[in-house]
Structures are given as structure tokens and as C-alpha cells.
């Protein structure tokens, strides 16, 4: 397996995630795009771990850690989104302009 293939797939996934974060208005869609970027990083970690044959398996172990952190991030993120929705009745980014309490 050439290392270029997983690296290129990961680069494409990452830039798709960048597009999603910048172009979407809905907060949940932005969270999904962040997940895409994290997955691109995971693919890179796995590919380079397999290539370098690390004795500590650092790539794959770090992939597991990133997956766990992503799960925690989505949990907290959705809790924040729901709190914002309760107070402002909207989760579109460009409608959340005030910083103070309503």
C-alpha cells in the first residue's frame, strides 16, 4: 500500500471539513464537519502507524484517543447547542450576534 493513497484521501476529507465549517449556518452541520476533519486526522494516524511499524503502536492508540475525545466533544457541543436553542430559539450562526444575556 502506497502511503500516498491514504494521505491524499485524508487531505481531501480535511478540506471538505474545512469547507463545511466555513460554509454552513446550522450549528449541528458545523459539528458534523468538525467530525469529518477529525476523521481525516485519524486516517493519517493509522496510515503512518502502519507504515512506520511503531513498536508502541502510537498511531493507532492516538486514533482511539481522538475518537474518545471526539465523542466527548460532540456531547458537550450538543449540550451547548441545546442551551443556546433554549434561550435564543435559533441555532443559526449568523443569528447569534449578541454576547450578553437576552
Amino acid at each position, binding site marked *: 500500500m502506497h502511503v500516498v493513497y491514504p494521505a*491524499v484521501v485524508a487531505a481531501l476529507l480535511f478540506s471538505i471539513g474545512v469547507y463545511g465549517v466555513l460554509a454552513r449556518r446550522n450549528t449541528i452541520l458545523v459539528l458534523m464537519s468538525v467530525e469529518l476533519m477529525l476523521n481525516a486526522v485519524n486516517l493519517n494516524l493509522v496510515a503512518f502507524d502502519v507504515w512506520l511499524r511503531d513498536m508502541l503502536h502510537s498511531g493507532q492508540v492516538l486514533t482511539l484517543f481522538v475518537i474518545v475525545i471526539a465523542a466527548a466533544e460532540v456531547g*458537550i457541543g450538543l449540550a451547548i447547542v441545546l442551551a443556546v436553542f433554549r434561550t435564543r430559539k435559533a441555532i443559526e450562526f449568523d443569528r447569534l450576534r449578541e454576547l450578553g444575556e437576552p
Partner: protein
Amino acid sequence: MRAVDFWPPSTLEIVFLLLGLVAVGSALLVVTTRQLVHAALWLVVCFGALAGCYLVLTAEFVAWVQVLIYVGAVVVLLLFGIMLTRAPIGRSDDLDSGNRVVAAVVAVATAGVLVSVVVGGFQHAYADLRPGAGSAEELGASIFRNWVLPFEALSVLLLAALIGAIVLSRTDIKGRR
């Protein structure tokens, strides 16, 4: 490190490229679709194809963790979020903000830079795949021998995230005045 030609690609590489194509295509649909629920479902396809990629790369344990946590938990959480924020179920034309063009330019520039750097840097790198290198046995031994401390720190982080999510989503907890 021996030099291996790009052409003809091996069967594994063809399988990997097809799975990668599915992943990239469904990721594109995630960020461009006009229906919120469809985005979450395309995310399932993307994560499933990535799990297939991990399997091809002999990282089987990571692949099953990906299926369990991403497809099983994260997407369900996102669907719950869509449901609880009373999102429109049908087509909605206001999912994209006004800076789509700028975002597309930035994304294409990122892709260009990353792909050219990666291709330039790793075009001769070749990974010999060894079956069983990412099995649960090897990874478990590695986690519980060399990575115990980060593992424990991560469990504390998960606990903190759990408590934080509960505190954030309960309405009857008032801040200290």
C-alpha cells in the same frame, strides 16, 4: 524501503481507493446536501467507508471502535440534536451561509496545498501490510503497558465531559450569585 511502482495498483490499493472514493463522495454530500437529516445519514456512509479503509490498512480494532462509537453513538447523538432543536425535516434552503464562495476557495486552496505537499513528500513511501498488526490483542497490550497514564487521564476527561453535559442541559441548576 523498496521502490514499488504506482502502476499496476495492487488489489488492496484498488479496494482502498474505492472505499476512499465513497468516503470523500459522501463527505461532499454531507457538506452540500439541503436536508439536515440526510447530512447525518451520509455521515454514516462516510464513517462506514472509513472503517473499511482502516480494515484494509490492517487496523481492525480501530475499525470496530470507529463503527461502534462514530456510527453507533456520535451520529445518533447528532440525530438527537437535530430532533431536539426542531429542525425542519424537509428541504431547507437556508443551511448555507453567505460566504459559500469564500469557503470553497479556502477549501480548494487547502486541498491543493495539502495534496501537493503529501504527494511530494511521500511518493516513494511504501507500507508493507502485515495482517494482525492492529488486532485487539496487540493494541490492548500496548494501551495497558505503555499508554496507561494517558488512558486514565482520558477516562477522567470523559467523566468531566459527562458531568459538564448534564450541568449544561439541566435547567434547574442555577449559577452561584
